């Protein structure tokens, strides 16, 4: 039985097409469709219910040491109010999850994780939780809304807001609702993610829509992150894919003290396959799991793919043999027995031009 987010009734009233996703009932799209929602985020501002995401609070004198041993990125350099993207790896260097870590204080953090991995992540963290750390699951009490797009900051106008990407402000009052405001996102656009209590979510949602934000569903969330070249757990990241294979080396700090998976990642530091971007020539879509060939030999498979609404052509991400990932390599994709010509292109596929800093976690 799927769970409902605090905004479930708003979605239904808004003509949202509800589907089960990671144990929750969420809108895949609203009445106008995925393409219109996608374009709204690229050109105006879209609002997403991402309350299914999990929040773990890690608090106590040993909090930093615990997180440092679990995370591939270096959290010791964080300041209060800062956010960092990191991977959680197992002993083999496989990815358990990709998460955001928020530092509230030197001994107080949040870890925001993927809904589909919540149970796995919590038991992993529990296993590695020392006596001087209190680990709490805040997921069931916490709603999350993502406001994304070039007009997002205007919609929030007049508020004190985090000025830099990957920073956050706590206890901001927005539309009468107390929230944590994080200058982060999963769309490749400027914007924020807002965390609030479940009971306050409908009011905040309504206020942001009244300010002109366009409600967007999971479908657009996926096409937006794909255009922005961002990995999705279960596709570009799994227990069988290392962060180095996924092209996320800049989030793995070998020069920090030991972390789980470090030795394995050092051993596997020259991977034979890497994540690459593919632009599909001609008509057709290569989704997940299609074999990719170069000069007659299979060189890998696709991990995600879609029609990219803003770019106007089909794109895919793939794990490919490192000898075939240089830009311009011509490949062929086997889509259910039909051959699609494609070309290796740089990631991200789409990069926003306005603004001075680039919030994408992908190099």
């Amino acid at each position: 039985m799927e769970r409902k987010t605090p905004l479930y009734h708003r979605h239904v009233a808004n003509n949202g097409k509800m589907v089960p996703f990671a144990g929750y009932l969420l809108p895949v799209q609203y009445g106008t469709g995925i393409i219109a929602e996608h374009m709204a985020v690229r050109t105006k501002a879209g609002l997403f219910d991402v309350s299914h995401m999990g929040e773990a609070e890690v608090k106590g004198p040993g909090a930093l040491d615990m997180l440092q041993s679990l995370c591939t990125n270096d959290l010791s350099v964080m300041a209060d109010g800062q956010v960092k993207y990191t991977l959680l790896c197992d002993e083999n260097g496989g990815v358990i999850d990709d998460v955001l870590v928020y530092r509230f204080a030197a001994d107080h953090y949040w870890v925001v994780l993927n809904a589909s991995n919540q149970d796995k992540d919590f038991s992993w963290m529990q296993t590695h939780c020392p006596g001087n750390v209190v680990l709490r699951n805040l997921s069931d009490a916490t709603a999350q809304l993502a406001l994304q797009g070039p007009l997002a900051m205007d919609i929030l106008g007049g508020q004190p807001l985090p000025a830099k990407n990957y920073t956050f402000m706590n206890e901001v009052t927005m539309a009468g609702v107390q929230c944590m405001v994080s200058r982060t996102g999963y769309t490749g656009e400027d914007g924020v993610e807002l965390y609030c209590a479940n009971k306050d979510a409908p009011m905040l949602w309504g206020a942001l829509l009244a300010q002109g934000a366009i409600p967007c569903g999971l479908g657009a969330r996926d096409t937006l992150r794909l255009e922005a070249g961002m990995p999705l757990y279960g596709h570009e990241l799994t227990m069988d894919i290392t962060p180095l294979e996924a092209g996320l080396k800049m989030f793995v700090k070998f020069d920090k003290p030991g972390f789980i998976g470090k030795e394995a990642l050092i051993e596997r530091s020259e991977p034979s396959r890497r994540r690459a971007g593919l632009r599909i020539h001609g008509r057709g879509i290569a989704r997940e799991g299609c074999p990719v060939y170069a000069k007659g030999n299979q060189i890998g498979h696709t991990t995600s793919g879609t029609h990219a609404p803003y770019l106007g052509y089909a794109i895919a991400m793939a794990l490919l043999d490192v000898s075939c990932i240089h830009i311009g390599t011509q490949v062929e994709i086997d889509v259910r027995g039909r051959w699609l010509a494609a070309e290796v292109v740089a990631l991200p596929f789409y990069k926003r031009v306005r603004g001075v800093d680039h919030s994408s976690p992908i190099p």
Partner: protein
Amino acid sequence: MNIPQNLRYTKSHEWVQDLGDGKARVGLTDHAQSEMGDIVFVTLPEVGDDVAVGERLADVESVKAVSEVYSPLCGKISAVNDALADDPAAINNDAYGAWLAEIDDIDDMEGAVELLSADEYAELTKEA
């Protein structure tokens, strides 16, 4: 949901228009296009192909997913709607105008697939 009375329907959400003389047009229902969302790509059969009941007739890709369209009839493809190559969204905009293929030499219009009346199809999609 729009379900014209003059067409027949399949449980897999195709519509069939009997053109007489053993000829019929096949397309996707309004219900199907609405479930699929924005359609961005259509693979059509070739004119002259033989198709059997239940065989893959076309692939219709929306942003979300690919859907296979099965032939409700046995016969020979006599025409395909090439305009869909440049304007696949026509299926979203006018599901009953945007036909996929025309099938000729149909020896049994009732076929092996149970064709539903508009009322029966309305009942089917109401339950879903």
